[in-house]
């Protein structure tokens, strides 16, 4: 199977190279119009078919690796290092992305899959799709080259000959990865990373061919939103994994690898917003092109950080010397982008001008400014230790205090824009409209501040000022204002429909959303963001307690009292585990039992905590069994009371729902008859176009 996998990779590389070369020649011939013996259209079609065949070849390679994991083929170095016989079946799949070679193969396979779908849909716009397909094949050539020459996943054990002895068992999967979310978190993240190759390819292709109009943006809109959704889910699943597995009570540690996934998300989010300026007003064309170029480059940087050991990270599960390959490729991509932009920048002239500082357009500008500043801050913080070491010869740590001081205020301002943006109309607005739209959110803001003070969630803790609690209070107040602003938008629209159709509120809201799914789906995403922010702000009020607990000894945290009622042990082929059994009382009454666990994986001998979490909308009771005191043999328990954490995961669900709604085509408006026919040029037509 190793030979079959390697052969598939070689074939895939040859097909991708053919796709790139034949596609480039065909598009050049089409652009110059030179007469040739071969029809450029036919040549381009052979390139497209090679891309489809390449997908089948990469699929064959991925299948070969999975098959090798399941058949415990320990003659393959990768399988020996990342699997073992007792590994549960779902984690056998996870072995594909648990190491560097496998994750690069996953990247190549996902890129092949995206390319396959793109090439099947080529009739939408044959020429643009040919450009995009050729650019994607260029990216594929890079990844397959790395897989074939630098990080081959099917390399055999040194000195191994066919039929010779192989190790009886493998080294097993990293215990940190043996958690259900690890089966879906990396693929989600990679679907997001790889997915941004598609809008990148369309943007670069459209620029190369001087594609007329903004149709390429409409074509890539679905691709971009789906990709963004995958990346969002990937990031949140990673947060939940960190929360449930690492056992430190938090979900985000500003680790370089976490940052690497967050940066393309920020630029991708900026792109999703600013692209509307181009669709509506023909503005920010250069900006959008560079946003998507940057997003793609940041996905490569993320992979570089994760896989090449450029910066140290607890998440970098595999490190090697492929960094040089990535740096060279990123330089090539950047050079191609700059060259194409300089050559074709006259095609990107802005068509309209901004009419007012207080308008939807300017809110998008500021939104982009803040998102890009946040991206820079994170990039700067991630790479500064490397820079500091280069300049001063010694490393420094850039950890949570730096990001909390710099990135949190930016995040709060972004939250503010999340609420303000939808309240501002396109083009310009009046003071009267501003007053009308901002009264209720302002009231909500100040009421929340008062409630925070009354409820004790104020910035003063024990008589001293606490910056974290101050930010939390601002976040709560701002969230209330933004939530009110968005809900008011829904209600205003629904009220019109209720008046016109006599429907009830819920039916009117449903119809309103279906009439403009993109707009109201987007609002729902904003509500999801608000819910997430509330959940994040809850961290300012975390409590924890650590204690060695003998039988029937008790600890209290918040409203809960935990009593140790026993310990237990379990064992299977993969790991041994120790449990502490804790009865949890609230108001003197037993409400549930928790069993935090500590595992020792047999093959690797590595320990792993399995946190016990009891979630309510108010807080999470999060209990870690840290192990037994070697002197007394008694379990050491650390309990956290983490307020509002559940809101983060609920917010993700709302974001997912909102994105799905935004992806659904809108219904034809019932009031379409009120539209002025497009051919009839009247003074009010622009107002209609600029509407919503």
């Amino acid at each position, binding site marked *: 199977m190793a030979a079959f996998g390697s052969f598939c990779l070689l074939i895939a590389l040859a097909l991708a190279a053919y796709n790139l070369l034949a596609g480039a020649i065909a598009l050049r011939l089409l652009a110059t119009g030179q007469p040739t013996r071969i029809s450029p259209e036919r040549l381009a079609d052979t390139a497209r078919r090679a891309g489809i065949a390449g997908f089948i070849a990469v699929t064959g390679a991925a299948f070969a690796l999975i098959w090798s994991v399941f058949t415990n083929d320990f003659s393959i170095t990768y399988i020996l290092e990342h699997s073992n016989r007792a590994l549960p079946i779902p984690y056998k799949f996870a072995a594909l992305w648990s190491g560097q070679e496998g994750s690069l193969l996953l990247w190549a396979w996902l890129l092949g899959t995206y390319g396959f779908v793109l090439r099947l849909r080529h009739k939408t716009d044959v020429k643009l799709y040919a450009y995009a397909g050729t650019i994607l094949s260029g990216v594929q050539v890079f990844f397959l080259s790395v897989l074939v020459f630098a990080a081959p996943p099917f390399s055999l054990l040194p000195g191994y000959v066919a039929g010779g002895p192989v190790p009886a068992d493998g080294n097993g999967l990293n215990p940190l990865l043996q958690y259900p979310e690890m089966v879906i978190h990396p693929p989600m993240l990679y679907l997001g990373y790889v997915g941004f190759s598609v809008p990148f390819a369309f943007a670069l292709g459209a620029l190369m061919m001087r594609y007329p109009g903004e149709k390429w943006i409409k074509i890539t809109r679905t691709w971009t939103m789906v990709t963004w959704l995958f990346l969002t889910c990937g990031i949140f699943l990673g947060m939940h994994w960190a929360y449930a597995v690492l056992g430190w009570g938090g979900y985000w540690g500003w680790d370089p690898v976490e940052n690497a996934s967050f940066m393309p998300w920020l630029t991708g989010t900026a792109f999703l917003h600013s692209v509307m300026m181009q669709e*509506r007003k023909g503005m920010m064309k250069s900006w959008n092109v560079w946003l998507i170029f940057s997003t793609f480059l940041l996905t490569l940087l993320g992979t570089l950080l994760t896989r090449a050991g450029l910066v140290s990270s607890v998440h970098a599960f595999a490190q090697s010397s492929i960094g040089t390959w990535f740096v060279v490729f990123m330089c090539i991509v950047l050079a191609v982008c700059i060259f194409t932009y300089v050559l074709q920048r006259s095609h990107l002239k802005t068509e309209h001008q901004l*009419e007012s500082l207080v308008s939807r357009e300017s809110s998008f500008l500021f939104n982009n400014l803040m998102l890009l500043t946040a991206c820079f801050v994170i990039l700067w913080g991630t790479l*500064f230790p490397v820079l500091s070491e280069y300049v001063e010869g010694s490393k420094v740590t850039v950890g949570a205090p730096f990001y909390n001081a710099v990135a949190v205020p930016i995040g709060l301002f972004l939250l503010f824009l999340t609420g303000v943006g*939808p309240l501002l109309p396109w083009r310009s607005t009046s003071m009267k409209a501003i007053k009308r739209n901002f009264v209720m959110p302002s009231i909500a803001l100040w009421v929340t501040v008062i409630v925070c003070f009354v409820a004790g969630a104020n910035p003063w803790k024990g008589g*001293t000022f606490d910056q974290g609690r101050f930010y939390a209070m601002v976040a709560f107040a701002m969230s209330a204002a933004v939530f009110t602003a968005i809900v008011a938008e829904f209600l205003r629209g629904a009220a019109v429909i209720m008046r016109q159709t006599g429907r009830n509120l819920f039916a009117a809201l449903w119809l309103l959303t279906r009439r403009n799914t993109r707009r109201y789906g987007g609002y729902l995403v904003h509500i999801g963001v608000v819910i997430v922010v509330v959940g994040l702000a809850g961290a300012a009020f975390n409590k924890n307690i650590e204690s060695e607990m003998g039988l029937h000894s008790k600890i209290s945290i918040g409203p809960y009292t935990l009593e140790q009622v026993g310990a237990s042990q379990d064992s299977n082929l993969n790991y041994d585990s120790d449990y502490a059994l804790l009865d949890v009382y609230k108001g003197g009454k037993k409400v549930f039992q928790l069993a935090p666990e500590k595992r020792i994986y047999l093959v690797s001998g590595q320990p792993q905590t399995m946190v016990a979490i009891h979630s309510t909308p108010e807080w999470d009771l999060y209990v870690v069994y840290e192990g037994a005191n070697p002197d007394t043999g008694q379990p050491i328990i650390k309990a956290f009371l983490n307020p509002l954490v559940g809101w983060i995961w609920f917010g993700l669900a709302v974001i997912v729902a909102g994105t799905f709604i935004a992806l659904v085509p809108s219904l034809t408006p019932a009031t379409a008859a009120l539209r002025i026919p497009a051919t009839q040029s009247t003074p*009010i037509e622009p107002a209609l176009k600029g509407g919503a």
Partner: protein
Amino acid sequence: MGAPARFAFWMRAVEASVLAVAICFSLGATDASARFNNLGHRLMCTCGCAQLLGECNHVGCPESGHELKELTAAIASGLSDQQILDGFAAKYGATVLAAPPTKGFDLVAWIAPFAVFAAALMGTILLIRRWGGLRGKKPAVETGELVALDTAEQERMERIRRETGEGGF
């Protein structure tokens, strides 16, 4: 209230808000447990776990236990926060600090984000000026794009816009 008076009022309001926030921030943590918690989150555990000292949860961690004891002792001895941080940095190296120090080249780490933000903000304002946003809006008729609509008509247009707007927010 005239425009200058209104401007002066808002300026005073902004000044008062800034002053209030500055006073709040300057209060800082003072009691020992708050200082312990604060400093524990400004130092890293040196065992290689990449966690903050105050959050390191490894059972049998060879470093965090005695580092926390040193921190408790340093607070009890009456040293200032900066002296404690400097002491840890001298003993364990600069990587024990969870954020770059605000001196020498490392000060760049703190300045750059704000400098970039200021530059980007300036760029955005210049861009808006270039696009005409701050030069005052031309009369709608002059632009040839819109005619002035009366209030009722604007309301009607707003309603139509809400119900028929396609795509985008």
